[in-house]
């Protein structure tokens, strides 16, 4: 690995200053993607800014009615070990539990998963489906954008020089949600395809549904699921949701699977995830 310097600022201001002074600087949370990329020579920062000592980035705070504030550096294990968060967002706790193995979850953060902007990121489709927003701060102040608009290309996100992700805000949920991915192993694997789904029900029908997909486009993508609103909860609706997902997917063929297979998986996973989210929505009532 090439030489770099290391700083561990205690507050956001110092972090933004360091990131602004060093245009190639990278923030370090869990490092489970960053250090691998640096070893492979894919990123060559001259400065690593360790953001784990900044209080705001370590916040994990759930407020019924307001939602969840998930600091960008909060490691996965803290999410599933927090009973209030796990109760309010079981799908999020589950995602935190499938990113890497136990050791990875001791370090990796959802914020890092988002910033890394991999098409295959497991948390992003769920965050999109949950309507999450990203709180960003930088030299020209603070801004908030939808997670759905955060990733712009493989490994590229909207952050401008000097900007860092502070937290992810997830609104309160009224229904159910689920992320399902397909991997050839049972753990420690990259999604061949993934589907994040949230749903609210009204009088036994779907009130609204959101669907987002992983690993089938240069970024995680949102599927237009508006046509599902008002649809009855039955197999035809589930099948239709799957078809919408398959139609929206733009997969490529690579070592993880062929394009046709991935499109097929989108339909299967979306259908299964929606069924599971509906069951969760019914249960939460």
């Amino acid at each position, binding site marked *: 690995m090439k030489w770099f310097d290391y700083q561990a600022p205690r507050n956001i201001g110092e972090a933004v200053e360091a990131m602004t002074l060093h245009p190639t600087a990278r923030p370090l949370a869990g490092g489970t993607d960053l250090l691998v990329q640096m070893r492979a020579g894919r990123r060559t920062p001259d400065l690593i800014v360790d953001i784990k000592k900044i209080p705001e980035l370590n916040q994990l705070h759930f407020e019924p009615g307001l939602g969840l504030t998930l600091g960008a550096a909060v490691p996965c294990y803290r999410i599933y070990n927090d009973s209030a968060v796990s109760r309010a967002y079981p799908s999020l706790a589950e995602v935190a539990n499938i990113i890497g193995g136990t050791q990875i979850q001791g370090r990796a953060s959802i914020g890092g998963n988002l910033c890394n902007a991999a098409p295959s990121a497991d948390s992003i489709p769920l965050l999109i489906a949950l309507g999450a927003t990203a709180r960003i701060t930088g030299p020209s102040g603070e801004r908030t954008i939808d997670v759905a608009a955060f990733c712009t290309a493989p490994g590229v996100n909207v952050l401008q020089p000097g900007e860092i992700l502070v937290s992810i805000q997830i609104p309160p949920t009224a229904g159910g949600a689920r992320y399902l991915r397909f991997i050839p192993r049972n753990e420690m694997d990259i999604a*061949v395809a993934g589907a994040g789904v949230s749903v609210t029900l009204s009088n036994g029908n779907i009130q609204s549904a959101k669907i987002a997909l992983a690993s089938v486009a240069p970024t995680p993508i949102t599927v237009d699921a508006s046509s599902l609103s008002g649809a009855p909860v039955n197999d035809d609706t589930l099948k239709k949701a799957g078809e919408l997902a398959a139609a929206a997917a733009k997969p490529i063929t690579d070592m993880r699977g062929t394009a046709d297979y991935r499109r097929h998986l989108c339909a299967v996973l979306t259908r299964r995830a929606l069924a599971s989210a509906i069951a969760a929505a019914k249960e939460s009532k």
Partner: protein
Amino acid sequence: MSTQYNVIGTRPIRHDGADKVTGRALYGADIQLNGLLHGAILRSPHAHARIKRIDTSKAEALPGVKAVATAADFPAAGDKIVDLGEGATPLSYIRGNVLAQGKVLYRGHAIAGVAATSAHIAEEAASLIEVEYEVLPCTLTAPDAMKDGAPILHEDLHMQEFGKKTDKVNNVADHFRFSIGDAEKGFEEADLIIEREFHTSTVHQGYIEPHNATVLWNNDGRVQVWTSTQGSFVVRDTTACILDLPVAQVKVTPMEIGGGFGGKIPVYLEPVAAVLSKKSGRPVKIVMTRKDVFEASGPTPGSYIRAKIGAKRDGTFTAAQAYLAYEAGAYPGAMVGPGAMCIFAAYDIKNVTVDGYDVVVNKPSTAAYRAPGATNAAFAAESVVDEIAEKLGIDPVDIRLKNAAKEGTQRVDGPKYRRVGCVEVLQAIKASEHYNAPLGGPNRGRGIGIGFWFNVGLPSSCTISVNADGSVNLVEGSTDIGGTRTSIAMQAAEVLGIPAEQVHPSVVDTDSIGFTAVTGGSRTTFATGWAAIEAARDIVRQMKERAAKLWETEPAEVNFENGVFSKNGKSMPFAELASKIGETGGPIVGRGAVNPRGVGGSFAGAIADVEVDPETGKTQVVRFTSIQDVGKAIHPAYVEGQMQGGSVQGIGWGLNEEYYMDTTGTMRNSSLLDYRMPTALDLPMIETIIVEVPNPGHPFGVRGVGEANIVPPPAALANAIHQAAGVRLRTLPMKPSTIMEAVWAK
């Protein structure tokens, strides 16, 4: 008749156990020396290219860099055929694989080495070496490489046919044919003939410890090597050969080894580290990255196989024929010979013809992997056998029993089997609870497969010295990859009539023990165990002389049984006599040096239950049993461990593992994330049935257990998937997308 043993068949704690659970055991990469430099290797980014120019000046100028080495630093010794533990090979191939000369033949091919004060500086320096390439088209599979007009890897490589050089230059290093009886006539007698084509991917042994080497070229000219290897004498001889030194000028200290499975027999780093040490005057350590291990060590061949079997209505096989083309990688030696000898090895078929082709391609030079060549072959044969059984409506075990190889069955390469346990393995499958249990759910299937491996003998040495406290020190040269210190010590203990704990085994360097061949070929418990038996017998002989002195009689009058020396009512346990060796003539050292005959081949079987998700094609192994004739299980726990480990490697090979190469010859999944070896979460418990048909050729009946167990799993899984999902997969790995595509095509 079963022999009663005191030590053999028990499960003592392994002698190196405490060191290995506390982190004290020193593996190759753990060595720290004063003044140690760290090395890095520059590797080819191209699968096939001519090297026009190498400029190392920028690397040499980087602060912290102490030496740079290229192939030009190797002595220009002439070419010769050498047998350094990997079979007969031209030295130029071995040397050319260590550092490329003139051409690079695969992506990852080593070009230069750098030694620097830190690994980071060495890595940076390697990236500063400028290489000008003329990129050439590459060829990546055996069928492609054999086509007219395919890119030629070695312009001077003429196809051999049983020792005769032909004038063909077509990437085929060797073609051979085995035939017994008359296959054509045999097929005419058949009521059913099934012929199928199979493809298997290149796979890696996947040992967790990367290759490493630390070398000090001392001021007295001696070269000291510390490394993780399956064969310290192979490393010694290869390093000496490449550096053109007398063998005894190189001393190799085998460190603990973190897995090998055949892949840690070849030498990759030692000669480079030696040159760097000579140039810098300091010890140099080089450790491969995981990417290097995938791209530049020796995986096992991918293959194309055509297998054909003819059977009568009653299930009798009348003829068989096979064509095997194995990918050797960059240099010849694809282990297609053993594949060809194993493909129908489980069956007594009178009329068989097998053709084999050893084909070079632009992939890393392949190495052995547990029963090398046999797993690919068994996948083909056992799939065809299963299909015949299905079409004839015969139980898969019964059809195999009907045709099973036994004592006197002629192998396709000529010799007849001595006592083997194929029938016993099949009977154990048939009688097992697993084979007779319900499948327990939808989308499930059960498959079986059987397979064979020869095992080998080869030389081993051992010395044993007696301590006054009644314990003995055992010195041997077989590196211990899976508990062989203990399985060897137990055989000595059995002869000496003392507990296994009273034997203190050490694996020592090449200066300190006689020549010992590799830990491989399932030979260590068999052959080095035999050397230990001989050494222990030598001890007993000398101890009898001492007892005779004490009792004023002749040694021949002294009895020795169950650890007690006796004569006419007088008796003395081993330990008591040991306490008197000082006063009866001094130290006692026993020696054993063997190159044994009596090698006993091993048959293994597998029963696999799978569940296939009909919508995703994902296969879950829900139950698995490994069955193997081991001859005699010296330490049953480690025998089970070998069977379980081989089974799981076979499961990985069957379901997900592969070198996923793009058209430029770049492996796209060269990490442990994307190579997808099984994790704990992917598997059930692996049940084992140890079958013991003693090998009449070994004093305790040992056959060797390390290899045959990997042979049946991919075939058993394919047969199980067929039952679960209704499709026959003839390509490895049988990954989810492949299964789904087969389901769609149906």
